[in-house]
């Protein structure tokens, strides 16, 4: 089991270093100069030169790569070109919006998907199964930004229960913070819950053909007991994989939803940074996302160990 862990850790490390190199090269190759972007169309060449020097853009590209890499190891991601604050502060400010939003929508998705998927599996082929599957089909088909706009129309413009968007900030109280995340979380959760419930249903149905299920049935257990006690746990592995993917996707993939609700999340940070050619921010956020994907996969690998005792050998 230890060698399994070491092997996983080693791949984690190698993938991080490799991806940092690829990210840096790709992003530095993008045309467009951050200094000319900031100074606009009336600036003189000498001013742009002065700003490039101030931003450290005149240094050799290799030096910049190593400075960035070494800085990151000590938690220093550099200073944003446009915002002029440390990149890690910028990311943290956004993470306190994006992370709770991700967790909230994923929790919501889980609370909807697990019962729905299990019930559908239990009543396979019955009316209730069909309705759940039909609903999930609709949930996947509806674009979440459209759903978000409908939510805004109903709950913000007509009922005035919620703001149309924006984020109060956690310092205005946890309730206000959660309130600003409610509608976005619902619109993000809908498609995820739909996907998840289908995966859960088919995964459970797959395990239901196994020998131990027949044994359980022979013992006289009810279908509901069989699913909750025996099939469910074994059906979890593919579900965990999907959950891991969904987590990483939601963390930065909420750009459109963040735009609809004008939330200051990671997705919008990276979007803004790309248009402003704030390369160091783009590089760092992408790196962070790569890190989180790799880390989540690592954690999922560890969870496999817990769920499936055979892997522990």
């Amino acid at each position, binding site marked *: 089991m230890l060698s399994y862990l070491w092997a996983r850790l080693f791949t984690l490390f190698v993938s991080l270093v490799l991806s940092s190199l690829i990210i840096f090269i790709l992003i530095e190759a993008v045309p467009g*100069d951050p200094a000319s972007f900031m100074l*606009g169309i009336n600036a003189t060449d000498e001013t742009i030169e002065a700003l490039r020097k101030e931003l450290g853009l005149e240094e050799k590209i290799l030096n910049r790569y190593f400075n960035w890499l070494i800085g990151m190891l000590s938690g220093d991601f550099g200073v944003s070109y446009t915002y*002029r604050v440390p990149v890690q502060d910028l990311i943290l400010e956004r993470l306190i919006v994006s992370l709770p939003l991700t967790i909230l929508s994923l929790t919501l998705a889980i609370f909807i998907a697990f019962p729905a998927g299990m019930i559908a599996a239990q009543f396979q082929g019955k009316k209730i199964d069909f309705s759940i599957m039909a609903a999930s089909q609709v949930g996947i088909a509806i674009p979440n930004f459209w759903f978000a706009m409908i939510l805004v129309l109903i709950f913000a413009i007509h009922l005035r229960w919620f703001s*149309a968007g924006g984020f109060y900030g956690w310092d*205005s109280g946890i309730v206000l913070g959660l309130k600003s995340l409610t509608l976005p979380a619902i619109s993000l959760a809908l498609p995820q819950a739909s996907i998840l419930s289908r995966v859960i249903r088919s995964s459970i149905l797959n395990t239901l053909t196994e020998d131990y299920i027949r044994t359980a049935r022979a013992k006289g257990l009810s279908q509901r007991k069989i699913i909750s006690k025996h099939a469910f746990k074994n059906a979890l592995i593919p579900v965990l994989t999907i959950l891991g993917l969904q987590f990483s996707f939601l963390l930065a993939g909420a750009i459109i939803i963040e735009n609809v609700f004008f939330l200051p999340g990671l997705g919008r940070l990276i979007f803004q940074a790309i248009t402003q050619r*704030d390369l160091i921010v783009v590089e760092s956020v992408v790196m962070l996302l790569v890190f989180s994907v790799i880390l989540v996969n690592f954690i999922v690998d560890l969870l496999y160990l817990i769920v499936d005792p055979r892997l522990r050998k």
Partner: protein
Amino acid sequence: MLKKITEYFAAVLILILTIGTSSAADKSITIGMQLEPPNLNPTGGAAAAIDEVVYANLFEGLTRFKSDGSVAPALAKSWTISANGLEYTFNLNDTVTFHDGTPMTAKDVKFSLDRARSEDSTNAQKALFVDIDTVKIIDALTVIVTLKAPNGNFITNMAWGDAIIVSENSISSLETAPIGTGPFKFSKWVKGDRVELIKNETYWGDQISLDRAIFKFISDPTAAFAAVMAGDIDAFPVFPAPENLSQFASDPRFSVIVGSTEGETILSTNNKQPPFDSLTMRKALAHAINRQEIIDGAMFGFGTPIGTHFAPHNPDYINLTSNSEYNPELSKQLIKEAGYDKNNAITLKLPPPSYARRGGEIVASQLRNVGLNVKISNLEWAQWLEQVFKGKDYNLTIVSHTEPADINIYARPNYYFQYDSKRFQELMRELSETTDPKKRSEILKKAQTMISEDYVNGYLFQLAKTGVANAKINGLWKNSPTQANDLTGVIWSD
């Protein structure tokens, strides 16, 4: 049990819904803006969003723009100009303090002006200060600025947001927690969401009516519409979707504010690249364009046709649209005369704003109508700056030049449209050395005519300022002589 749970959830729901809906004190205003400023330092970047937050609210200069575009005293209560037009003596107001409590004196004026024109200055409008020779402190409240050559624009230049007076002590925090002299103080900035300013109780000038100003950043036009409809935003002075304005206009809760800006929207033309290095071809271009169709199609009717690079609300403006009247037949004839080969594709490179993207499609179809082979490519701003502005690798592009009184850009032979006319350059030199208003007006009119008759660029329309506000708000700027949201005169009516 079930009943208890439902009751509990109902209670939580009610709690959540009631919190935050009660609006804060009436004396605050929430302004919507499409772009977030990258930082709050107007002396180190060109982003208009910076001035839209800080100009006149947080920072002040020696002089300032009023809403009608005229220049008024600000930190300098008065000034005198020597007979040769070289020496400006500024008398400063004597009760001005920075938000950190230190008094604003001649020392700060000298520091700010010297900093802006220094060698390592990153001021985006460094040209404003280029004529300054020395800045001399006479006493705490008197400064003499000596120019290298007379400059009739100098007092106006000092009103720009890039020429604000800062304190040496607070330079390091200008970007993130700025300290100025204005009627509002910086309070906080939730990055990506909003900037909050609060009233400066010890302001030297007239007290303002507002206690708090919040600038909220909403980039998506649909979201902006929802936020105004839901009442989250009190005013959106530059509303991103003109197509929604009629809906606001019919709603008694809102007033729609339509004014003018300094934005000459032009079909910029590369004067050094074939085929538009030929005057005949540029003239053909001008006559191929139907301005009203562009204004109606791209701007929903908001915008004033222009025939030169000058704002129509300026008293010195002359209407030269007749030089480039829509006449496709004449245009076709000129193209034939110039011997244009249809196999040569003409590139029209468009930056992101909707006036360019929407307007570009219409312009392209108008040009195709007269037989020009136009290819559109859409660029991001950073690419546009690299390829078009710096690289001059383009035939045509559409940009709104939003700087006030910027006809002098035509005197720069290396500017991106590459108009190199000795006559015009001479005219601009004459203008900067002239202080007599009547003579200046004459020169300005001559300049407008010259670029119109040289068909330097296709002159499309003056960008309108179209915004929406709560009907109870008074005192917002209608026009936009400089990009700003001056809130000093804003009051809520009952």
